[in-house]
């Protein structure tokens, strides 16, 4: 749990830093930002139509009118052909998410897990997370130069997390036993590789995010399959837990580890690796933002990452110094 907190802090620091880096007065309004994001999903041969939408939105006055126009354009950008090879990868993501969801339902029914109001709440959250990952993956897959390294990075990350458990199906359910350093190393390779491949930190960050989404869905599918097959086998009843409680707990652990911890770690460490790689090997395209950052902002740019780093180190130390179960 402390690790999750560490990575949430890291993500928050990244968002704050991004806001501080923006040149005052240059921040577009929400419809323009949303449209700018969505037109990046268009295939290269349709890029002109994205610029057409941006140019048209730029001339529109009135908040409601701008929102309506931008939302319509986002919908058009999401479905506008051609999808090309991204469609196959999206199909794989959908299959993994649907398979994992179906296995969770099967496990609930097969092991007659207890159900109350919170069960439905967490199932709804799980559904939202799975749908969100598929949607996020679908947008990242269409970004230029991201799909190939992102999917390869997803495989690498999934393999690293499987290696952490010793590739042991029976012990998979709760095991983080050895080689845990691999789970930290894989996102570094993904972020740095994506940056070198794509030539910019932005591509590296997206590559890490796509790797996080694909690995999360793939490993979560593996995890719930393990729970569904193994159930409470080997459980010692003298600990006071019923078999249904054991299965329910294991099912929840899969979600926490592989739908929360894995993607957070992969995305944030990958983001840091991409930024570091780009700093060591600067973008070929000039970035106007750093030159325009005010002096006060620069101070914050140093303080914030340092504070986040210090918090991370402290929490990691606390975690490892705490008595093990």
């Amino acid at each position, binding site marked *: 749990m402390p690790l999750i907190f560490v990575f949430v802090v890291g993500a928050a620091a990244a968002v704050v830093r991004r806001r501080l880096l923006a040149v005052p007065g240059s921040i577009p309004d929400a419809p323009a930002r949303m449209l700018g994001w969505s037109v990046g999903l268009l295939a290269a041969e349709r890029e002109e139509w994205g610029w*057409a939408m941006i*140019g048209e939105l*730029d001339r529109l006055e009135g908040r409601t009118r701008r929102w309506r126009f931008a939302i319509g354009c986002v919908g*058009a950008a999401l479905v506008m052909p051609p999808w090309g090879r991204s469609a196959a990868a999206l199909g794989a993501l959908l299959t993994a998410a649907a398979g994992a969801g179906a296995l969770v339902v099967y496990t609930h029914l097969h092991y007659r897990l207890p159900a109350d109001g919170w069960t439905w709440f967490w199932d709804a959250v799980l559904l939202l997370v799975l749908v969100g990952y598929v949607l996020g993956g679908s947008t990242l897959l269409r970004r230029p130069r991201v799909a190939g390294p992102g999917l390869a990075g997803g495989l690498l990350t999934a393999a690293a997390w499987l290696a952490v458990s010793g590739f042991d199906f029976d012990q998979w359910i709760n095991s983080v036993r050895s080689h845990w350093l691999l789970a930290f190393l894989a996102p570094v390779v993904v972020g740095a590789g994506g940056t070198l491949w794509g030539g910019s930190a932005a591509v590296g960050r997206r590559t890490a995010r796509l790797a996080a989404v694909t690995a999360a869905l793939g490993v979560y599918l593996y995890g719930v399959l393990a729970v569904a097959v193994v159930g409470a086998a080997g459980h010692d009843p003298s600990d006071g837990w019923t078999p249904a409680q054991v299965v329910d707990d294991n099912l929840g652990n899969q979600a926490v580890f592989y739908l929360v911890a894995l993607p957070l770690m992969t995305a944030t460490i990958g983001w840091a690796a991409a930024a570091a790689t780009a700093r060591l090997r600067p973008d070929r395209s000039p970035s106007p933002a750093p030159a325009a950052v005010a002096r006060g902002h620069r101070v914050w740019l140093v303080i914030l990452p340092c504070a986040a780093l210090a918090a991370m180190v402290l929490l990691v130390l606390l975690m490892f110094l705490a008595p093990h179960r």
Partner: protein
Amino acid sequence: MPPRNRPLSAQAVGVLRALAAEPSRWRYGYDLATEVGLKSGSLYPILLRLADRGLLEAAWEPGPEGRPPRHMYRLTGSGREYLAALPTPARLAPRLNLRPSEAP
């Protein structure tokens, strides 16, 4: 890419008709959407299909300094021929959102 001989939707024909009202005039996307009664999410895929079929042409109008350029559209010769070749019921099918002054 869709087959070129696939019939156009009523909405696409509506866009062609709006452009045909003044064939030589360049039109902006938002103006077209307002006139034909289409949301932007429907308009741009239609414009894209019409451009793919060579029924309309597009050009860029440079924006003021620091602003993005604006896309403009007008019918091509093929677009005018396509519209002229449509049977009468299909030409009347699309319901345009005409202003009172433009109503027949």
